[in-house]
């Protein structure tokens, strides 16, 4: 039997118990709020304060851990050897987030604090005799993963790729609340590009690297999974509250994040391709304990494929520009003009005094608007835009497609009379229903 076969025991449903012994042979038994599966030969436990268990481990590294499968009630016993304590890094952050969720769940938020992740080698694993119930498999994640990969593998359009992925999560994985965020490296933040299962899409909303479940997953490039929600990691509530407190007087440039108000289980998985952070795939549920180790592994595999596909889309050369973008109709649309206001310090754009977008997508929009006003131009190509000095792309490998998609989705959601639509591979059109008026 391998350690990865009993990970259901490590979900914290039935607390594990550990026995240690001092040098004079006095045993000590303690309950464990969290046992973390590390790999096939290692587990990690939380070091929260200096107690008898810790004193014993420092003197005598041998310990025995008893865990119970929460479904079958099968008992397992692990012979452990204490190796080291980690106080930073992916394992530590992952356990810290999980512990915060556990502490919040059991009303111990001020009590449970992670000082370190104690890593143990598992020397032996055995099932202990006792009564057991039959296992109750609910779904097959490998099959869901394969069907999802089959579906997205050949997708060459970013918008459709993300939409297909989120739909597959709902249909194949029974995960109804999900979002995909892409990473803006110079800004050190993530922006929502697609979501499913929320009242509002939240496209364009941002999370700083290191903020909440999603930001920590991105910063540490490790999955963060919480089985009981904790206010400590409740990024959406804080941001939503802050946004409300600012009121209408501030120049409101924060788009509220989507998110479940009654979120109980959360899992954020970084998308990394060729050692580069592409973004984060995030799922959540109103149920406690919804996502397991297996869900995490399956989503990590999906996120790897998703990251690679997005990376390939970004790396693909733009369609050659024949320089023959038609100037388009020069007749101006009728009606009251739409006031376009631009703040160069952060490239934020307001349409008729309402916030649209900022950053790179804002600078793209302004380049389009200026060309449209100066030369009546409506047709554009990705290639020309990428080389446009007015567009402040962080570097050539930046995901222009993602920025355009973000801008296009925001324009559609704002419904302010301007939109951009794809007219072919690497080509799109700016469409204004009313005249545009630049306010400086």
């Amino acid at each position, binding site marked *: 039997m391998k350690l990865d076969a009993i990970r259901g025991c490590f979900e914290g449903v*039935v*607390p594990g*118990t*550990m*026995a*240690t*012994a001092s*040098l004079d*042979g*006095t*045993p*000590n*038994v*303690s*309950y464990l*709020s969290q046992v973390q599966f590390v790999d096939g030969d290692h587990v990690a436990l939380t070091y929260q*304060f200096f*107690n*008898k268990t810790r004193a014993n481990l420092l003197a*005598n590294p*041998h*310990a*025995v*851990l*008893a865990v*119970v499968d*929460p*479904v*079958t*009630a099968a*008992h397992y*016993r692990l*012979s452990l050897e204490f190796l080291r304590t980690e106080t930073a890094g992916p394992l530590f952050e992952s356990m810290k987030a999980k512990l915060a969720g556990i502490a919040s769940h*059991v009303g*111990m938020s001020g*009590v*449970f604090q992670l000082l370190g992740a104690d890593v143990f080698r598992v020397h032996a694993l055995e099932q*202990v*005799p*006792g*009564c*057991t*119930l039959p296992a109750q498999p609910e779904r097959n994640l490998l099959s869901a993963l394969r069907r999802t990969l089959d579906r997205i593998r050949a997708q060459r359009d970013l918008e459709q790729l993300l939409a297909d992925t989120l739909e597959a999560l709902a249909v194949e994985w029974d995960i109804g609340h999900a979002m995909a965020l892409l990473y803006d490296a110079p800004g050190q933040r993530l922006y929502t590009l697609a979501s499913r299962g929320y009242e509002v899409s939240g496209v364009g909303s941002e999370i700083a690297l290191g903020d909440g479940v999603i930001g920590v997953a991105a910063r540490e490039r490790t999955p963060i999974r919480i089985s009981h929600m904790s206010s400590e990691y409740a990024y959406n509530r804080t941001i939503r509250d802050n946004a409300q407190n600012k009121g209408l007087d501030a120049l409101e440039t924060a788009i509220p994040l989507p998110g479940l108000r009654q979120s109980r289980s959360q899992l954020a998985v970084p998308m990394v391709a060729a050692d580069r952070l592409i973004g984060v795939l995030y799922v959540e549920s109103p149920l406690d304990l919804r996502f397991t180790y297996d869900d995490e592994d399956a989503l990590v595999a999906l996120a790897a494929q998703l990251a690679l596909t997005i990376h390939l889309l970004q790396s693909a050369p733009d369609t050659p520009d024949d320089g023959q973008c038609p100037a388009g109709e020069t007749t101006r649309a009728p009606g009251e003009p739409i006031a376009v206001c631009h703040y160069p310090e952060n490239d934020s754009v307001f349409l008729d005094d309402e916030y649209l977008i900022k950053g790179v997508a804002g600078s793209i929009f302004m380049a389009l608007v200026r060309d449209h006003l100066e030369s009546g131009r409506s047709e554009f190509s990705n290639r020309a835009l990428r080389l446009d000095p007015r567009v402040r792309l962080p570097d050539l490998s930046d995901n222009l497609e993602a920025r355009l998609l973000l801008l296009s989705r925001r324009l559609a959601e704002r419904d302010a009379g301007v939109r951009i639509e794809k007219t072919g591979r690497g080509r799109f059109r700016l469409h204004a229903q009313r005249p545009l008026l630049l306010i400086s």
Partner: protein
Amino acid sequence: MIPAHEALPPPLFDAELAAFMQGGISLNIGSCGPDRRPSVARAFGCRIAADRRQVRMLVSSSHAAQVLAHVRATGVLAAVFSEPSTYRTVQLKGVDATVEPATPEDLAAVAACRAGFVAELEPLGYAPDMVRALLGCPDADIVAVRFTPSAAFSQTPGPDAGRALGVAS
């Protein structure tokens, strides 16, 4: 049972705590072999003498085989009592533990403890069938580990964790 004697120190815990420990909560015992390797097993019941100087932890001889082997070799014991709904946790230590056959009173205590634990855990969302399986064991397999508590500690998570218990007389 040891007869009451004036020279004996007061018991390490009071009657309220004795009732708590016998009330159908989570029970575990640990021991240690001569090689200083520890062992741990779940206990299915507990009986405490009226004078609170003797404790019988009731375990399955197959499930707790390693702990029983250690107890027979060294006599050292740790017993932990924890109430899942409150996290109230107590640990007793002993150095004179012995393994004895279970009495009819022991078996009755196991049945009562099992029922109490099911009732304790059901409101917390644990399926009764699972809890019964967790504590499932044929009567013929039950043995008692008897010991004299030599130390008692609070182990409830929080600032008092690890504090030695005494009894206000």
